[in-house]
């Protein structure tokens, strides 16, 4: 039973990272219909940026404390996201090209970012100092690390904020209107440019945050992007594409499922590696609209 409660915490924490990646996809998908597979590389770069800004490893003269460092990294990510939109997406949207053209162009961006990360950060894993150190924390029957609790807390705060934003603010309404009908939203006076740019920027910020969180546990690593891309998209597919709560639910379920299958199912561990992939394929084929699809209709 001790195992189970430890697993809940670690599976939940991994799941939160998947949820955030799903959210990163979603923030761009909702208003623009564009699927950006490069979000995993944002996370990778966010991790290296954290190493560069918070430690002496990559850029020796700069070593900011955690909070200012985090803010600097997130600001950089916002700039990156906006720049990617401006360079690789805007010209296509202006031309009226279909969303698949943007998806392909962003695959090009993916490779550029991957290579930039590998050149800048190198091919070894590099760490940042976790903000609360590393040790075993117990509370009731549960046990985890400070970083896993931090990850869970940050994720819940982010999702609450995003939910409030979409549900309660005028700006969120503008996003929503754009996601329903771009042209109509524009006629209603919504600034399409601003919505699109902020969608890409916030997507990069959320993915970059994932990178920072990971750099505090397993290190910033140049190959982490593709795995996070698949995990994030799977979270979205499981939970229900297009829904903020779907991303959270899908990610957490995926994280818990992975952990529980690996721990309790009597299959060899090399087979359990296929769990997320099989979950993804099963959902795509059998239930492509995810778990939450039927609530709330279209």
């Amino acid at each position, binding site marked *: 039973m001790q195992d189970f409660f430890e697993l809940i915490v670690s599976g939940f924490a991994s799941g939160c990272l998947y949820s955030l990646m799903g959210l990163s996809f979603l923030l761009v998908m909702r208003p623009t219909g564009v699927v950006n597979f490069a979000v995993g590389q944002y996370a990778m770069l966010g991790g290296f940026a954290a190493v560069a800004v918070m430690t002496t490893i990559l850029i020796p003269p700069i070593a900011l404390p955690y909070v200012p460092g985090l803010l600097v990294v997130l600001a950089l990510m916002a700039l990156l996201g906006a720049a990617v939109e401006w360079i690789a997406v805007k010209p296509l949207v202006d031309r009226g090209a279909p969303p698949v053209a943007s998806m392909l162009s962003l695959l090009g961006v993916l490779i550029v970012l991957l290579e930039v990360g590998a050149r800048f950060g190198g091919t070894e894993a590099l760490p940042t100092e976790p903000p609360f150190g590393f040790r075993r924390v117990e509370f009731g029957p549960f046990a985890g690390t400070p970083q896993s609790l931090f990850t869970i807390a940050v994720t819940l705060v982010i999702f609450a904020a995003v939910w409030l934003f979409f549900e309660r603010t005028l700006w969120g309404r503008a996003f929503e209107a754009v996601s329903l009908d771009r042209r109509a939203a524009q006629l209603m006076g919504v600034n399409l440019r601003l919505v699109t740019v902020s969608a890409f920027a916030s997507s990069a910020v959320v993915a970059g945050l994932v990178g920072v969180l990971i750099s505090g546990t397993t290190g910033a690593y140049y190959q982490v992007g593709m795995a996070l891309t698949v995990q994030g998209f799977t979270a979205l597919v499981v939970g229900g594409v297009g829904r903020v709560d779907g991303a959270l639910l899908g990610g957490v379920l995926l994280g818990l499922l992975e952990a529980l299958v690996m721990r309790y199912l009597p299959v060899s561990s090399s087979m359990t*590696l296929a769990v997320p992939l099989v979950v993804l394929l099963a959902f795509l084929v059998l239930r492509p609209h995810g778990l939450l699809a039927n609530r709330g209709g279209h």
Partner: protein
Amino acid sequence: MMFSLNLSIATSTAALGLLAAAGGAQSQETIKVGVLVDQTGKTSFYSQPVTEGTLMAVEEVNAAGGVLGRQIELILEDDNGRPDLSATKARKLVDDGVVAIISNSNSGATRQAISVTAESLTPQLASANSAETLTTLDNSCFFQLGPVESLQVKTMLAFTKTKGYGKVALVGDNSGLSTAAVDQFRMGLGEAGVPIVEEQLIPVGSQTAVPQLQKVRAAEPNAIYQVAQIGPQVVQFFQAYQQLGMKQPILGTFNLSSSSYLTTAKGLMDGTVFTDAFDPEKPEAIAFSERFKAKFDKEATSLEAYGHDSVVLIVDAIKRANSTERPAICKAIAETKGLPRVMGAKGTGFDFSRGDRRGFDPEGVVVRAIENNAYTGAVFSGTKN
């Protein structure tokens, strides 16, 4: 860190280019040696440092007058760590007229290149590959310079013989490097009659190793063989181990000698022992480390030493063969015995006398430990206890 490394490679390559140009101006032609290196692929983190050692060794040889009065010219080819590209680049090197090829890329790439060197009987030297089956391929001119995986198991088994580890667990990751090691460790432990009560892989790209280590904890082994090779997964292993409050001794592989773990898994590895092919107290190793530090202003690791040693071997073979003909060099390498090298335990050197084209002395693997977040010297060596 990576910046400086890339820079140093760039500068040394440039320096080498100059040397080569100078050599060309001299009366005699250079001796061309090819290097297959993964500069851009997934295994570049390990292939590049090895190549750095190769570059440094050639510079030293050339500064000391070269071999047979001629300068050595290295031709570097990036194979991206991809097997198909590696074979292509090997063909290019053969066509360029190299007398030998030094393979510093991953074992998959090396293996594919072997099919090429076999056709032309070009001597091919794998500096650091530890894959078990490379020398079983039909190519009499291929030589493996590093220790194979099974030697690690044998050495660790000899080291732990007196400790009474009646049952052990085996943990790896799902990278090619690690799964190959897991296979060898399973086989070696099986031969020694040590039961493996749990075997786990940590998937590359996963965020935690808690489920895997819980299973290990539940199986109650006396010790854990840690053969994961990919950085984040190794770190996850140590984090989960600490988080779950586990106390079993950890027995690691060469991989842990990569000093980056002292940062990424800071303070988590104390008490771990691991097999290494590098003995920091060996005179040759001390001398090499000093020269390396003087040149690059950083600590040498075993990877650079591997790359260095392949040049030592080939230079010696050319000297003894007194020829730059490929078959002659091939023959000379096969006859090498007792040639001192940086890698390996004190008192061991290159030795191909067993005829299996494996040049690493079977007694040359050492066991080292990590204490206070720092590596110790060899606490044990060889396979006899």
